[in-house]
């Protein structure tokens, strides 16, 4: 036989081996059940003879024999090539499955050792993906649940971890898993199967949101701590806010001019915190109006807001000692529709010409229409909202604007209550935390990208993808 045949035969011989090092340390640490239970191979892959027996060339009659041998070699190589491409890859190594920690019981982790025909074991990987199947019986019908492409996992790692998602009805049910390797042409290898079943469990705490819980406890703890501090008599400084100082001035102006005040608590419902904050300001405005004997009208866009606003205004009048002056008809419902509401308000403003207009709550496109109409009738306007897109319109058209957190601080500021002022200081602690995270994050990213520090880069990625992503 020629050297070429020997070389062809040699190149086709495959090492048949199994990972003899046992289970990987990470799987061992988890103490998960595992086994190597190869199923019946769908097609064997045999060795093609011993190459050492065919490497002595024969003399004589080389012309004819050479041509015949070349043809023979070609046929052998072609047939062998066909066999090689049709043969499925080697099955994966060990497989292990276990419950995913710290979740709602809707995930199971499956880890397995890559096939010997896959990187990093094979120089030329022959595996396209891994097929994971599961069943509720060890010998039942296994159904495909996931395919993991080899490119999805780190090529240097011998182990692939996959998460299998479950439905709520499957939570707690026992499953067996089988993993097979799928070759480049779609041939499926023998499978490896878990020997004991795995069931998911619902954890008490969602660890994916752990960091959010930490930040929340820090912020709320600071707020509660400062409230407690304020109750003990500590003096807390809050900077003056022009818009809130102007509330009294505006109500007084309305009283002098003999015209009503108009209070618009936004267009959203009571489940929106801005509406609640708006009603808190309404309480103070109504109290002032009761003291000065001015009228305040509160047209609302939501029925529930109307009932809450009525209670608020009535209590304010009682607090001011003017229960007789309260008129429930001044707090009324108009319509839920955004532009129907603003059409009513603008018409009302043009007809009634209020002297003071308060826009406190959540607004959208109607913000500028209200503010411009109020300006055209000569009213003093104080606005407050936490909608960033509407703030520029209010700033441009109103006399005073409470921006974002100033609006939320309004109730505490106007009441002067030490408890509430303490919460404002606690809020500032939150700002310090945010500022610190900003500085740390910017520093880490700068070091990581410009400085080339991999530690900083990893830390920055952890900060961004884990801590700040809601978990």
């Amino acid at each position: 036989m020629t050297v070429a045949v020997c070389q062809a035969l040699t190149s086709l011989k495959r090492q048949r081996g199994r990972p003899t090092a046992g289970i990987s340390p990470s799987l061992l640490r988890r103490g998960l059940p595992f086994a190597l239970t190869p199923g019946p191979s769908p097609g064997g892959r045999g060795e093609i003879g011993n190459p050492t027996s065919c490497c002595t060339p024969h003399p004589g009659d080389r012309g004819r024999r050479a041509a015949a041998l070349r043809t023979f070699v070609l046929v052998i190589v072609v047939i062998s090539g066909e066999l090689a491409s049709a043969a499925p890859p080697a099955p994966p190594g060990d497989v292990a499955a276990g419950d995913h920690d710290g979740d709602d019981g809707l995930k199971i982790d499956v880890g397995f050792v890559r096939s010997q025909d896959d990187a990093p074991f094979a120089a030329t990987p022959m595996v396209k993906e891994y097929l994971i199947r599961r069943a509720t019986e060890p010998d039942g019908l296994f159904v495909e649940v996931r395919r993991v492409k080899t490119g999805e996992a780190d090529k240097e790692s011998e182990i692939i971890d996959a998460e299998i998602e479950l439905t709520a009805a499957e939570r707690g049910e026992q499953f067996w898993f089988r993993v097979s390797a799928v070759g480049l042409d779609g041939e499926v290898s023998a499978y490896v199967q878990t020997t004991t079943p795995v069931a998911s469990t619902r954890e008490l705490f969602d660890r994916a949101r752990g960091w959010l819980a930490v930040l929340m406890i820090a912020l709320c703890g600071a707020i509660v701590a400062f409230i407690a501090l304020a109750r003990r008599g500590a003096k807390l400084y809050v900077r003056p806010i022009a818009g809130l100082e102007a509330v009294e001035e505006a109500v007084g102006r309305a009283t002098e001019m003999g015209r009503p005040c108009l209070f618009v608590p936004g267009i959203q419902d009571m489940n929106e915190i801005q509406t609640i904050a708006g009603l808190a300001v309404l309480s103070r405005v109504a109290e002032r109006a009761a003291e000065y004997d001015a009228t305040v009208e509160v047209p609302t866009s939501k029925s529930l807001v109307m009932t809450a606003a009525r209670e608020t205004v009535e209590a304010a009048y009682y607090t001011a000692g003017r229960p007789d002056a309260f008129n429930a008809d001044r707090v009324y419902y108009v319509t839920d529709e955004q532009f129907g509401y603003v059409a009513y308000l603008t018409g009302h403003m043009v007809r009634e010409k209020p002297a003071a207009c308060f826009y406190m709550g959540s607004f959208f496109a109607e913000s500028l229409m209200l503010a411009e109409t109020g300006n055209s009738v000569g009213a003093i306007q104080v606005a407050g909202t936490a909608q960033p897109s509407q703030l520029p319109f209010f700033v441009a058209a109103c006399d005073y604007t409470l921006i974002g957190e100033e609006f939320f601080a309004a109730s505490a500021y106007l009441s002067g209550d030490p408890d509430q002022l303490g919460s404002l200081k606690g809020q500032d602690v939150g700002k310090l935390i945010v500022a610190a995270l900003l500085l740390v994050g910017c520093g880490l990213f700068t070091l990581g990208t410009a400085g080339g520090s991999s530690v900083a880069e990893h830390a920055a990625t952890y900060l961004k993808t884990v801590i700040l992503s809601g978990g």
Partner: protein
Amino acid sequence: MKRTIPLLITALSGFVLIFAYFIPATESWGESVAIWFDILAAIAYVLGGGNLIKVQLKKISDRKAGWGYAAVTLMAFTVTLIIGLFKVGVTPARNQEYYGESFAPLPVSLLPEFSVPGELPIKQHPQALPPSVRSQMQVADGRLTFRGWMRDDQFDDLISWDSRLEWRANVEALQEAATPPAELRGVLAYHYEHQSLSFLGRMSPEQETALRTAIIEPGAETAVERLRNAASKETSAPVEWTPPTLSIPAGAPVVVENDRLVVQGPLTPSDRKSLERRWAGLPIARQLLDFQIRFWLTKVTSNGPSLRREQVEILNRVLGTAFTAEELRDVLNTAGQAQPTPKSWRELLAEQQEGIADLEPMQPAGESVTVSDAQLAALERFAVDPEFTPDALVEALRAAGPLTPGQESKLRATIDGLPTVGERNYALALELLKAGSLSTAQIDVLLNDYRNERHWRRDVAVLAEASHVVKYPWSGQFDQQGSGFSWLYRYIFQPLTATMFALLAFFVASASFRAFRAKNLAAILLLGTAFIILLGRTFAGVLLTSWLPEELAWLRMENLTIEIMRVFATAGNRAIMIGIALGLASTSLRVLLGVDRSHLGGGDD
């Protein structure tokens, strides 16, 4: 006390919502709390409506300034409420009605019982049977018992309830047992949702006998009688035009008598479809030969002015193009491709018990059936011969070679979807009108067939609606297309809303005129930035700085705009949003803890 309870409810609901976010087992509690809010808001709508009526009536009675607006408001409110509440002009939802079915109430206890051996599989967590079978299925004494006949959705629910093979095999056996007799298969069903028996289409005497034999419980005769009457009730509708090729098969529930379509029982959707197309024998649009195209051209031009060159080209193209025999051959070959068929659950169970490790759920595909040369010849004839009907084609295909039931049904469905002569002429008329003009007479010539076909389909639709017994008259959406409410919304509300929204442009202009004044440094910066942003979003701005070289491309208006929005505006926005988020958290905590009670009315309680 008056404020204590709301405070307690607020605190409890708030903390439940917070903890539910972190504790997976309590996630649904948060959803329940949110649902309670929706219920309260819905109740508050009544209060709001009542308040609106009261306030507006007071304005009218006091003749206050603007009382006319109050009157209009009240009228609009009342009209919209009545039209919306009573669903004026709303038809029953098509996806909720049971077209072609007759119903008769029948309690589950009077249904026949079917039983097979079997046990409930043991689950880690106890789980009730699927809701669709609870009223009809029982498991006791080692037997699975089902009352009535199992529907496909019930079978699917039971199969997916547990994936063990023994369970699925038992369910399969139960389904086989709980199948109606052969005469009633596919037409008889029991609806557990409203405990009634249903029958599809017209009930023949043989089917009636089979039904009486199948339900023998005393007390069920009334239901069977009612069902029989409903499934035999005659309904008729006038027909304006009857296709000359109409051929209703014997045994069909529909006949044409004295210019009326008469149906026994409700007209089923499949019968309706067949009547509209297949039984009507409407001529299929086939590819025309040159002399046939010339005939059409002469016919059109003799009824009006000559066609333009483009129109003649269109006519040649449309009339010379139609389905081909090769397309039908491909349809048949595709349908004839052998597909693997699923094994039954009992077969899989048997394989499992034999010890086969890797169970394969599908059986290998058989041999494919392809179109023979003789069959192709039949298809080619069908493609050109208008006298060659679809029924004749099927007969010819059967005679010329193997034809599987799947191939036949696919072929018939394909033929039913081919455009008719009327539809082709309609499309031709539209294209000719786009390319030029046609006289009224020419349009009539082209659309005559289409009009007749439309009349026929309309009359069949009228018959189908007349024979249908509405089950849920109020199931349609209140804002359904064509209803009174949608008319109000589309033609009154939307234009008014758009008008108000359009006013915003003028308000923006006036606010900008007032705000963008160079009074101080901050105002100058604001004015300059606004100038750049406004210009940068127009072609004029792009043109103004397009001359800048590539090294200074960042100074071009459009790039400056992007940079200002991306960096400065985003930074400011984020700063405000951070403050808002913190203020939001602080305010929420104050409200939850009851520290801030001003929204409930300040003061002590």
